[in-house]
């Protein structure tokens, strides 16, 4: 657990570094994956999405934090909400599309691998910073955090994101008719459903049901339906 990285006179948040690294990689890789035939102003749309992700990520955290005024004033705390970032980026893309229509399907296909990798890097940053608290557990790979042994929920999130990356690389050979964007949505949904199940500081409904898991399950159903529909349509047409 390393809340800050000290480099000479600089004291940098390890989570903040990972977020910046993740966004930088995401931008660089995405710009190279967007097909030139899609006629998309890649720098323009990616810039807007990064701004949206940043604002959404910060807003998501601050709105979910308990002492909002303290966190707003605490500029050194680079806390960041991944769901907030996704919603922010999607909203920014919708806004951009409204002003300058883009081929969203092609764009999302191109963004699939960079986005899942960015999520994995961000999750590792969460772990380095000791942010996001797992439920208490004293198993083999438990980590000491917030006064107890806990599930390393951040590493679960990174692991599921990387598994989704591997699946995205294999999927074109196994299910070539399914566009990559559905695997992106599926990877995000699976992460929300699975890894958040080990998180102690998630927003819960009555009975301890986590909201984000419910959202993930709904998204997963949508992806499942879409995949099955595509497979069936292709099957009936051949």
């Amino acid at each position: 657990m390393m809340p800050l990285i000290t480099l000479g006179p600089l004291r940098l948040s390890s989570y903040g570094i990972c977020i910046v690294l993740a966004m930088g990689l995401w931008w660089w890789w995405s710009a190279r994956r967007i097909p030139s035939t899609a006629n998309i102003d890649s720098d323009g749309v990616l810039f807007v999405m990064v701004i949206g992700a940043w604002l959404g990520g910060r807003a998501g955290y601050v709105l979910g934090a308990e002492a909002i005024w303290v966190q707003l004033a605490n500029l050194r705390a680079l806390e960041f909400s991944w769901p907030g970032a996704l919603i922010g980026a999607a909203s920014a893309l919708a806004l951009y599309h409204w002003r300058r229509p883009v081929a969203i399907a092609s764009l999302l296909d191109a963004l699939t691998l960079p986005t899942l990798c960015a999520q994995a890097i961000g999750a590792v940053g969460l772990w380095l910073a000791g942010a996001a608290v797992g439920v208490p557990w004293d198993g083999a790979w438990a980590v000491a955090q917030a006064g107890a042994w806990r599930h390393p929920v951040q590493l679960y999130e990174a692991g599921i994101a990387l598994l989704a990356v591997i699946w995205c690389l294999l999927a074109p050979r196994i299910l070539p008719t399914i566009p990559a964007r559905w695997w992106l949505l599926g990877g995000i949904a699976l992460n929300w459903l699975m890894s958040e199940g080990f998180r102690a500081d998630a927003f819960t409904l009555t009975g301890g049901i986590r909201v984000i898991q419910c959202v993930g399950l709904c998204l997963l159903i949508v992806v499942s339906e879409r995949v099955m529909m595509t497979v069936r349509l292709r099957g009936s047409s051949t």
Partner: protein
Amino acid sequence: MNYQFHWMSLVVLLLGLGWVVATRHVATPTIVVAPGFPLPALEFTTATGSIVTPTSHGRAQILTLWASWCPPCRAELPVVAALAPSLATRGIDVVLVNQGESPADAQGFLADQHITLPVWYDRNGALATAVASRDLPTTVFVDGTGVVRLVYRGPVSPEVLTTMATTLTMGAQP
């Protein structure tokens, strides 16, 4: 429209619902104290192993939750230590509550920094749990009646300490 819910989605739904229910998390009931409520009777240990409880005896207390591996804490402690004597003259005791470390680790760092404030050891994170804070450092301001007036997450500045000292001692002024 002839829409058919696919069997695979049904499997996903059932498995997903099972997972959501199986992993539901009802937090263990703990005393979470918010500003305006009394600090519960927490127990800490001293370097010699004796048990201490933060009781006010009419004096306000500033409890600084810290760890020596935490760089913001290392930056904050000298600031707190420098103001502690003037705070003491105003009826406010500053106590460093170390989270999760051994007295040897904590005292080694404090000796290097020439900090001589009293230190309590909170091996189980009782204070962090009580004030629902996951951040280090966290500073808990308790007035002379034992009521928490502010839980400040992150490093405190001299201005915050001074302002809160006034707040903590307002009720104690003649």
